């Protein structure tokens, strides 16, 4: 492999032996390609396989690891959990046994210990409220952008996406400065005499709502905008023509037709918000209970990896349902568009 180190792959595999490449190497490469072709993993198949491979490596494998840990015992060791699979040698009978021990008590604890149930419920509530806030704020914004002059839509969408150019963490920190005692907000409200300057929103559930709503608003606006922009304004004229006042036309035409956007946006906000850790950690109060925090504490403070894993698995199960709803709605929407 001397001068030809950078020879394109295709050349190396084509026909004769390029100088400097050992014969067995090119034969092996050709065999591999032939094999991949045979199983349909070449060309288009390869492109389709790539994301599956990605998901397999970075989602399914970690998931299985976590799933396994959730059934083990917590031990003080490195790693801090027992192995659920053990190979036992029975010297008397000269037998080998593969023993799998599943510790179900962690899951039982999730169901019986109030802490976890509260944490889940509280997370769901916080995520749901934040999603609703995002929807209430995002819908008018998306609507206004979709109805703006076409030349203005690009710049306006740019403004929505612009915050992503700054680190998420820095933006959340910025909210600390705004919400803290003697912070920007307190001073502004203090100046008009509404509150005294020691008043603060920081370290409360309200601060977490503000943080989540602020951070996830673009995820609500983007799909909403996409559906609202496609909405043909002539449909609203037709509704008006048939006797609808503008708000009736909104309820009967715009709203139902933007439902896919509402569902998509809500799930895009709700799903990550349930497991949110950074925002409640930085902006929340000591009693802001969210499952992300519990998870973190189990992992890093208690070093109880099995419980932490079980919490993570349960969270996933919670979220699988809305994700499936999302998939279903999306598939139906695409189906409808294809036939249109």
């Amino acid at each position, binding site marked *: 492999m001397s001068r030809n180190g950078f020879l394109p792959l295709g050349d190396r595999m084509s026909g004769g032996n390029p100088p400097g490449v050992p014969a067995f190497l090119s034969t092996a490469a050709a065999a591999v390609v032939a094999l991949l072709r045979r199983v349909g993993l070449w060309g288009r198949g390869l492109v389709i396989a790539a994301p599956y491979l990605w998901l397999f490596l970075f989602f399914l494998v970690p998931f299985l690891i976590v799933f396994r840990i959730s059934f083990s015992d917590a031990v003080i060791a490195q790693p801090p959990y027992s192995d659920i699979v053990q190979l036992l040698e029975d010297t008397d009978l000269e037998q080998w046994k593969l023993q799998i021990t599943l510790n179900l008590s962690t899951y039982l604890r999730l169901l019986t210990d109030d802490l976890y149930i509260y944490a889940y419920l509280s997370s769901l509530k916080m995520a749901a409220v934040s999603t609703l806030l995002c929807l209430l704020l995002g819908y008018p914004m998306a609507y206004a952008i979709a109805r703006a002059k076409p030349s203005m839509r690009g710049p306006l969408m740019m403004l929505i996406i612009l915050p992503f150019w700054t680190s998420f963490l820095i933006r959340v920190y910025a909210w600390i400065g705004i919400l803290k005692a003697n912070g920007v907000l307190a001073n502004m409200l203090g100046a008009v005499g509404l509150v005294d300057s020691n008043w603060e929103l920081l370290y409360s559930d309200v601060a977490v709502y503000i943080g989540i709503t602020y951070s996830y608003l673009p995820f609500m606006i983007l799909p909403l905008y996409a559906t609202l922009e496609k909405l*043909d304004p002539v449909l609203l*004229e*037709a509704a008006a023509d*048939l006797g609808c*006042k503008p708000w009736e036309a909104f309820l009967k035409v715009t709203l*139902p037709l933007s439902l896919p956007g509402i569902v998509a946006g809500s799930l895009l906000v709700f799903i990550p918000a349930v497991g949110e850790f950074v925002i409640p950690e930085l902006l929340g109060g000591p009693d802001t209970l969210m499952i992300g925090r519990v998870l973190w504490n189990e992992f890093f403070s208690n070093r109880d990896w099995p419980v932490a894993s079980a919490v993570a698995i349960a969270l996933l199960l919670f979220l699988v349902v809305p994700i499936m709803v999302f998939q279903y709605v999306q598939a139906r929407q695409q189906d409808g568009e294809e036939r249109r």
Partner: protein
Amino acid sequence: MATAQVIRNPARLEPWQDPKAVPYVRIEKVTKRFGDFVAVDDVSLSIYRNEFFALLGGSGSGKTTLLRMLAGFERPSEGRIFIDGVDMTEVPPYERPVNMMFQSYALFPHMSVEQNVAFGLKQDRMPAAQIRDRVAEMLALVQLDRFAKRRPHQLSGGQRQRVALARALVKRPKLLLLDEPLGALDKRLREKTQFELVNLQEKLGITFIVVTHDQEEAMTMSSRIAVMNQGYIVQTGTPTEVYEYPGSRFVAEFIGDVNMFEGRVVEDEPDHVLIRSDEAGCDLYINHGVPMPIGTQVSVAVRPEKVLLSKDPPPDGGGRNATRGIVREIAYLGDASIYIIQLHTGKTVRVTAPNVTRRVDMPLTWDDEVHLSWRPFAGVVLAQ
């Protein structure tokens, strides 16, 4: 023209002839500008109750814009619109006694055919049972009963058009605006629906304003036609008036086929006018006077079906309204044939003649020398 006009009740009045009649729709000096562009230019129209009024014009002539102003989707830049004596200029669409069928149909994609049609009735809080009956009746009329449960995207273009028609008709508005209502229908269904529309209109007493760029459709269905060009109304009249007495070259050429002869007025009496035309190769004699001085350059329009072809010279010649040429093309249409004839002056003339004999026995064929002639009433003098 090959189309038959729908024969209307002869007792029908022609309210536009009656100076005491009150128009149902009055458009007064309406202009609509989009920026600098004038889409509708100083249009005034009076449309009477029960009329079937057609707006005819080429693409971009402002028909849709005028209709949208009647429906209330656009505000006139200038002028006023009255419906039933009420000034509608500022009234929002949902309060106008008007329904519109949109050129793009504008069906609600999230509703079934049935729900689309029922939409306006529900909006009026009509009892459910009554809505069901009305919708069923309407769907039967447009032959869509079998498709009641389908969504618009599951229909063909023509079916969608019929849903749009049903949705606009079902509320039985006083004034119905139709933007190209029959464009996507096949010929059979189109003719059937044309009759259906006219019947419905006479039965329900709805005033129709129909936009079309299909002149046959306008001729067939309407009581009167307004011909639009570049935002102006060029001429308003009954189909016969517009066809037989076009007021301008544009109208003559837009509606039906026409032969144009350029010429110069040489004799102008109260009962006739004589025009010398080098193009025609003869003097054109027309049996009415024109308010134009001797020497004025004019065009004379002669419809193809008014020209007679013969192998022998016409009897009462005198060199007027008679010329000669050679048959260049024959298009056989079954009931009639179109002859393209090159005059000796070089001008080509189009002539249609009914096929009174079988094709094989036809007296004229390619490259025959023929005489062309027409009667004194056939020509229409048009200023240039």
